[in-house]
């Protein structure tokens, strides 16, 4: 039994099939890149995994437990945490409260000092230690991204979905971000990351998936996948891919 299995996942919006019969599995502790041109269905797939959108067809299971058909809150309590492509923090809450939330409402339902401890730990991991009393709305963009990751970590998830978490960082921040994600995999966390920054994908992900027009067109070792003519064609157009 695979850790995460996706069988024939399909999402249709009226006449548009955003995710088209996608199947793959992830093993525990894997870190896998999810690539593809804009509009290829990556974020929709993440939304299907996190329960933000219901599937039109197919099945998603985490450690044998069916996730498809469940509400986002029950998916979260089953051990799935995510960040959002457009960063979503809770501006009127403090950093501590922002990060405490999934610890409080997640599977382990911490409260009081236990919840504070989990949140403090998560804040420390992303480099926001000591700032827990500040308001999230006052943070800079990079710190908002850190905060969002800390919030996902405080859920103590078994599967972490990162939707372009590294996007918009400057070179120094990118280096820190890559190191941060690497440190997460050391603890056995399984990560599926949508990412456009190839440098990050090459460094972090031994395996990559590529989507185009809703379909999964490649799945394998990152270097091979990136050299695949179909993948090159998907990014650059059909020009001379077959010639």
């Amino acid at each position, binding site marked *: 039994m695979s850790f995460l299995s996706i069988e024939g996942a399909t999402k249709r919006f009226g006449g548009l099939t955003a995710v088209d019969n996608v199947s793959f599995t992830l093993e525990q502790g894997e870190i896998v890149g999810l690539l593809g041109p804009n509009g290829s269905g990556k974020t929709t797939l993440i939304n299907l995994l996190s329960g933000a959108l219901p599937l039109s067809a197919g099945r998603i299971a985490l450690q044998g437990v069916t996730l498809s058909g469940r509400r986002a*809150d029950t998916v*979260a309590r089953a051990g799935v945490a995510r960040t959002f492509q457009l960063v979503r923090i809770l501006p009127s809450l403090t950093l501590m409260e922002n990060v405490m939330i999934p610890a409080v409402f997640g599977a382990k339902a911490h409260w009081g000092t236990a919840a504070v401890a989990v949140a403090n730990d998560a804040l420390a991991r992303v480099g926001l230690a000591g700032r827990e009393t500040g308001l999230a709305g006052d943070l800079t963009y990079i710190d908002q991204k850190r905060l969002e990751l800390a919030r996902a970590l405080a859920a103590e998830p078994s599967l972490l979905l990162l939707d372009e978490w590294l996007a918009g960082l400057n070179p120094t921040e990118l280096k820190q971000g890559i190191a941060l994600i690497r440190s997460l995999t050391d603890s056995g966390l399984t990560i599926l990351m949508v990412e456009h920054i190839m440098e990050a994908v090459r460094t972090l992900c031994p395996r990559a998936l590529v989507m185009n027009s809703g379909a999964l067109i490649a799945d394998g070792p990152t270097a091979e996948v990136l050299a695949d003519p179909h993948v090159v064609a998907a990014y650059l157009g059909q020009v001379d891919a077959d010639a």
Partner: protein
Amino acid sequence: MRKTLSLALPLAALVLLAAAPLVASAYQLGLLLGMATYVTLASAWALFSGHTRYISLATVAFYGTGAYTVAVLNESLPYPVVLAVAGVIGAGLALVVGLSTLRLAGIYFVIFSFGLSELIRELITWYEVNVTGTLGRYIFLDITARGIYWQMLALGAFTIGLTAWIHRRRLGLALRVIGDDETVAAHSGIHLARVKLIVFVLASTIITLAGAIASPRWVYVEPSIVFNPTVSFLTVIMALLGGANRLWGPALGAVPLFLVFEWLSSDFPDTYPIILGLLFIAVVFVLPNGVLAGIERLRQRRKA
């Protein structure tokens, strides 16, 4: 020290307010009752709307339902039972309304909640005219103005106490998260529908009880009197003026505004609605987060 003060001060105020009718004139008692009623309504309204930011204009739908329940049942059942029935009807109505509407967001919820009040008023009017054949009803209960005031004071104190208690629980945190971002709330494991429904039913039941308790003051009741939409608007503006997401905000807004409206409606009955509208606009423009937040901001600016 702060903790004991934050408990001792309200308790002392409650004792003073409870003793006030012993020295107050009939007119002053009427003012006290009005203030207690609006403090209760605004606090109950803010319990749900303050953090979730679902602006409800359905206050009078529940308030009027409570009053009407008393009007219908006051001759056939003992008073405590009538109150209990009113509470149950309010909770049931809130459950049905909540289940069908809490997925509406923003302006749609506002319009629905306003429509609900009008719908209930029209339904009762239709029923009274076509089925019972009389539009008005009388409430003859052996309750003094003092008795009504004490009940309302108790309900108001209970509402503020309940709000303080909820703010310290998971439920309170869940409400604040929902107010900021429902998507994040759901992805953090919060059952959106359940949280919203629990608090909506609690708040609506309190508002229904407030209507039931206040109703004997009217003596004569008909739909256009008890389902007056101004009650809903006043409740919203009072809570917003004080600060709907603060424990004492709604009370702080309700007391001065009630007195101002009382004075305006007696001394300027013709221009009163215009002034009400202007005040509404002023509150939203000048103090969108309420007086308490405004004071805090001023203090911070002085420090900086």
